[in-house]
């Protein structure tokens, strides 16, 4: 470390920018994280350009247009690049607009979970005692609710649609975030700089905001970035089971559910309708892979133990 006699020139760049560039450098050192980011960038572009690639035919852009009313899917052809699935829903349209749904679900669910988790986790972790006990018992209750039962109940109450899926996932996943943030806070709470902040006269709220959260955020952020992929998968599964959006909505899980009757294909041609399964499945996989790679990279960059190795 520099001795006072070897002072460096006064920094021209604000140290926060330096930290950011340092983080970015570390981030891109790993080729996998660049790949992950590239995949997500691709999907983002598709989502933004959805009206351009596939102009909507109905007032609600999420309704996939029929190319006819024939039940049997037709293979990829000039008019329909990805082919069509049951009842002639255009696959290309579904995939492209489904990207928007996927992002919507992922970000809404994880975003809401983060907010709830941080709020409750911070309160439980920092104040401890009775408040902590109560909140933890509440999370215990939510942990023990069976997923599908809750999903079905909510669908009955609210009706089918992505909203139901989103609400179900928020209700059932916030405990994990709360727990993780709380455990980090329990460690940080006893550090001396928190005591120093109290001795300085900071209020509890300020301490949580300025000292505890910036230091405790790492684990939750890592969880969030790794979870977005899993969230999409779960949403797709729920849609596949019929608990998600209406038939014909541009949602990947929904599209996969349409192929249920066609997976086996025709007698003699077992993979006649491969495109109904493969294309949406591949797209989902790629999307989740992108988020997982991103999550791994975030963890590698933010893990305090690995930071200075």
């Amino acid at each position, binding site marked *: *470390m520099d*001795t*006072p*006699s*070897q002072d460096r020139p006064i920094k021209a760049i604000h140290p926060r920018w330096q930290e950011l560039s340092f983080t970015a450098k570390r981030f891109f050192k790993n080729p996998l994280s660049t790949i992950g980011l590239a995949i997500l960038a691709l999907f983002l572009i598709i989502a933004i350009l959805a009206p351009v690639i596939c102009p909507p035919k109905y007032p609600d852009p999420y309704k996939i247009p029929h190319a006819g009313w024939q039940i049997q899917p037709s293979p990829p052809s000039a008019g329909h690049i990805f082919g069509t699935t049951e009842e002639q829903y255009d696959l290309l349209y579904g995939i492209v607009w489904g990207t928007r749904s996927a992002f919507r679900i992922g970000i809404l669910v994880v975003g809401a979970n983060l907010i709830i988790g941080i709020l409750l986790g911070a309160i439980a972790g920092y104040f401890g005692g009775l408040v902590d006990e109560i909140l933890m018992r509440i999370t215990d209750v939510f942990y023990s609710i069976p997923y599908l039962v809750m999903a079905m109940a909510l669908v009955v109450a609210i009706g089918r649609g992505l909203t139901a899926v989103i609400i179900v996932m928020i209700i059932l996943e916030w405990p994990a975030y709360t727990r993780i943030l709380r455990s980090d806070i329990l460690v940080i709470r006893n550090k001396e700089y928190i005591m120093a902040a109290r001795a300085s006269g900071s209020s509890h709220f300020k301490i949580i905001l300025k000292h505890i959260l910036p230091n405790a955020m790492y684990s939750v952020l890592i969880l969030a970035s790794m979870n977005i992929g899993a969230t999409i998968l779960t949403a797709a599964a729920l849609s596949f089971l019929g608990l998600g959006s209406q038939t014909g909505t541009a949602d990947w899980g929904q599209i996969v559910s349409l192929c249920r009757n066609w997976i086996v294909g025709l007698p003699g041609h077992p993979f006649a309708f491969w495109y109904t399964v493969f294309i949406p499945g591949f797209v989902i996989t790629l999307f989740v892979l992108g988020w997982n790679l991103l999550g791994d990279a975030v963890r590698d960059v933010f893990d305090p133990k690995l930071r*200075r*190795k």
Partner: protein
Amino acid sequence: MTAQHLVETSDLSTNFYTFEGIVRALNNIALVVNQGETYGIVGESGCGKSVTVRSMMRIVQTPGRIDGGSIVMYLNPEDKQKGIEILDRSEVYMSSIRGKDISMIFQEPGAALNPVLSIEQQIAESYQFHRMGEMLGLTISRLQAEAPSSGPAKIWNDVRLGLLKRELEAYEAHDTLIRTIDNELYRLEDASDQASISRKRELNHERDRPVRTSLLVDFVRRIPFLRRYRHPLERTISTEVVDLLRSLGIPNPENIAKRYPHELSGGMQQRIVIAIALACHPTLLIADEPTSNLDVTIQAQIVDLIRELKKTKISSVVFITHDLGLVAEICDRVTVMYAGDVAETATVKELFRNPLHPYARGLLEAVPKETQEGELTIIPGAVPNLIRPPSGCRFHPRCKMKMDICEREKPETIEREPGHFVACHLYTKDASK
């Protein structure tokens, strides 16, 4: 009479390859530890005292690597004059001398003890690894002495004796093999021609093979009920453990042996760590800041214990510390290290009476003493970053007596007075007259 060397390092350099650069922890240092003395290594954080002894035992943590130099140890019981180059030996050889010939105790006793094993189990590990043959022999003679005369008990006893004897045979055969290999390695120690080097490699490879017991014993050891034949062995080891604890002055040793580390206080834990280190009567005990985490009164107890043990059980001690008071109390000779360099080496009396190196002098003046008059004299600045260490003499940025040459050249170590070595340009000038 010149003392017999125990450990000699020369030109030793160890580097740590980290994300931020190469940390040059040891800068071609030379140290000599004599047999039968308490040798102190003093310095502040980052000076390399821990890295030095870890290099000696070859337990430098990754990403560290010993990158050059030699470490010679005179551990051959038959021929005390002949040294062994430690850096050439295999890892298995090092495992066999760690705990047996050289032992080390660390700063945090709580971290050195395994929380899920009882004290007895942890000390027994040492016995099981190094002195198995002896333990087997003791058990066999005990069983033979207590043998019941007839009936199913006699049959069971005979079975046990048979199996234990087989194990003992295997260990003894292994021991003889090792001894022959070691003898040949000693003979070839200094030879550097191609044939010898390949022979040495062959021998090291031979030595690495595990102990082979008979198939029968291996089989029986896997059968749940018959496995109990080893219980007398475990009992023998338990007795040895309790005796060891008693000889260290630990009250109520039978009780303590059954306890777990977290049930004991810091001072007691450190005593257990010392017990583990001494289980096999090592020639050298290395103590890396063993009392830094302990209270002053407990520290006095531990230091007293080490002093007592030095008289009876251990022959030499290397004591690392940053506390000059401890050095004055317990050490015979001492080395002062700074930022990976050896600054000064002398007997303790000599160093305190007449410190030559400016750093050593500064250190002695910066420590609050009981007869302190006026302010403490400080050494300005801070310990340098070893990724980009200062050129020449590493102390020059903070030295009050700095000359031009100090920035350019690293000073050589000279013997200013018999037994008093210093590495400083202030003295090289006079010496080259």
